[in-house]
């Protein structure tokens, strides 16, 4: 040992160095400023220029927005108030258009004495969706979630209570067929029957049954036709219905596209490619104009319902591809691990594959949802009065002719808040589901 030390050829450490704090320039606010804003001369110049640009924009826009006028009945009145308060020609916003036409922007032409119904529907929707979004809430709430589509439909459109109940009964029929017919006619037959019987029931039996019950025991609230729907209420109904219906459909299509079964596989591929390959606006025109040619004469298939179906199919095709990406990203070992334990196809999909694949696909799924929600504004082209359609109508009145910015800023802001909330939720969910501890 001593020999080695003397010759200093080899080296043996006899004390370990303890951990020390980093130098002050490498910690805290100084470090942050140096690294992010002033890391080189060029970056320092860019920082200063950027600060000036931000100042310039804010100084012009903030005043216009903050000093805006909230109380006026028309654009000319608004200008009078402005001239009186700030002097001739001052540049301030006229938010009064929002207060004046608030009800219309929110509810369209929904009867004003019934505004409580959409508001209650929104509250109930939030209650119904909460246990889906946050799994710390009691699981019993999911029963209400399952019932909510019918409750919400009844609240929004009204009419006899037997309509939604008769439609809901179709699901019970499907379940009963699956439960009791499967032992008799086998698994495959049971599944097919569980799809076919309710569909036949919905097509042929729901109308007469609901009508008969409605005549016998008339319970119901005032009916509001779809034509009266408008504003953000319309955007929300179409957007939310589309989002909720398209996710399961998209997942099924993604699984179908991965399936070994020839017909299911080809059907999924064709469906996805055709729906995705044609612009949404074309599908919306199809829904509003052409669909009537294919339906039996005399059927009056609600336009809003047709739009919801089209929007759902459209985003389901996108979702299918997003989910397929997630499925493809899973190592084959996960499929084999599930198989080797004896789980059947649906068990392994539900318990092993989809939870992981959907987690991977969350960013893509949420992007598709956001896209769908914003695309609801396209319905203006087929004559539905969504917020954009209403803003056009408002600007066409003599009172508010000539106002642009305020309406579009407000509509844009509302959409932004909703979409940003979805994005934030998805990021929270991603963090919560992260178990790999990288």
């Amino acid at each position, binding site marked *: 040992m001593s020999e080695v030390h003397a010759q200093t050829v080899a080296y043996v450490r006899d004390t370990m160095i303890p951990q020390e704090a980093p130098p002050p320039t490498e910690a805290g606010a100084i470090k942050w400023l140096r690294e992010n804003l002033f890391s080189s001369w060029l970056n320092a110049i860019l920082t200063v220029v950027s600060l000036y640009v931000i100042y310039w924009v804010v100084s012009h826009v903030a005043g216009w927005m903050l000093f805006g006028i909230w109380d006026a009945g028309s654009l000319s009145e608004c200008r009078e108030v402005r001239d009186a308060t700030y002097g001739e020609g001052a540049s301030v916003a006229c938010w009064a258009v929002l207060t004046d036409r608030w009800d219309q922007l929110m509810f369209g032409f929904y009867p004003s004495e019934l505004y409580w119904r959409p508001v209650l529907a929104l509250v109930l929707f939030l209650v119904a969706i909460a246990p889906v979004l946050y799994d710390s809430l009691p699981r019993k709430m999911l029963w209400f979630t399952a019932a909510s589509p019918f409750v919400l439909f009844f609240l929004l459109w009204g009419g006899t209570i037997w309509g939604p109940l008769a439609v809901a009964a179709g699901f019970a029929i499907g379940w009963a067929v699956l439960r009791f017919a499967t032992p008799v006619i086998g698994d495959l037959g049971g599944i097919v029957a569980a799809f076919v019987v309710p569909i036949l029931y919905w097509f042929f039996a729901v109308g007469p049954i609901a009508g008969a019950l409605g005549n016998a025991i008339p319970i119901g609230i005032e009916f509001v036709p779809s034509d009266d729907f408008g504003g953000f209420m319309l955007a929300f109904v179409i957007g939310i219905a589309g989002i909720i219906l398209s996710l399961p459909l998209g997942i099924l299509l993604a699984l179908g596209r991965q399936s070994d079964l020839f017909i299911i596989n080809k059907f999924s591929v064709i469906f996805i490619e055709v729906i995705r390959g044609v612009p949404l606006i074309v599908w919306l025109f199809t829904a509003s104009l052409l669909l009537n040619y294919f339906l039996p004469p005399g059927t009056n298939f609600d336009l809003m319902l047709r739009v919801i179906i089209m929007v759902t199919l459209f985003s389901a095709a996108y979702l299918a591809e997003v989910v397929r990406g997630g499925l493809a990203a899973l190592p084959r070992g996960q499929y084999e691990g599930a198989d080797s334990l004896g789980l059947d196809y649906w*068990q392994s999909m539900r318990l092993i594959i989809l939870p992981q694949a959907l987690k991977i696909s969350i960013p893509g799924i949420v992007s598709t949802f956001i896209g769908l929600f914003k695309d609801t504004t396209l319905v203006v082209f087929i004559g539905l009065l969504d917020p954009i359609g209403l803003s056009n109508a408002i600007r066409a009145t003599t009172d508010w002719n000539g106002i642009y910015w305020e309406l579009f800023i407000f509509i844009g802001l509302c959409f932004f808040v909703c979409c940003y909330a979805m994005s934030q939720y998805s990021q929270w969910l991603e963090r919560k589901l992260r178990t790999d501890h990288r």
Partner: protein
Amino acid sequence: MAEAHTNPVEERQIDRSQMQVSDEVAIEIAGMNKWYGTFHVLRDIDLTVNRGERIVICGPSGSGKSTLIRCINALEEHQKGSITVDGTLLSNDLKNIDRIRSEVGMVFQHFNLFPHLTILENCTLAPIWVRKTPKREAEETAMYFLEKVKIPEQANKYPGQLSGGQQQRVAIARSLCMRPRIMLFDEPTSALDPEMIKEVLDTMIQLAEDGMTMLVVTHEMGFARQVANRVIFMDQGQIVEQNEPEEFFMNPKSDRTKLFLSQILGH
């Protein structure tokens, strides 16, 4: 494919009292052939495994040894010949396949634990959903086997938080929770650091001591020598030689086996 090595299974006294080969047939493979497209991967495989046997299958990369054991629980489909597991003929009938899979445990090279579930959930999933065991009972079973593989304290962690060796032991416990009658091991130590190989091999030895029927694809020749009652050497999709370990290592008959053994034991 990990390179072959003769990692020392520490010479420990193995309790052979439960290691008995019975006359009962566990797996019967007759005239089995498999193709990947036009490539003939497995050729005329005949193999009978009795209950209680511990068989080590070795051979060069691409010799078809993994494919062979993956055929036994239908992770791969064979095109000709028959495989009978515990008296159930492996056919296209999904019910038969699921029954066989729930009776045959499998341990993979890359563990294939489910990363979104805790260790305990990994172990209870199949008993709850396939065997319809009540949750409480499944958890008790899972804890029993986690203790057996010596990691009960990790039960509520996620697989990503465990070392490779621990993950592989969890994978073994997960298979055991289904109370399988046969265990298949597909290169269980090839993805592990040398330090961790021992803990996994120890677990496998323990399993052998309990009398489990085991088919093990591995390059751990120490393990083969100590635990196996039969060693099978495969090359080019065929069984080239099989013998008791003593004879197999000391006195290999075919030239191909001699070459293989000299390559993996030689350095």
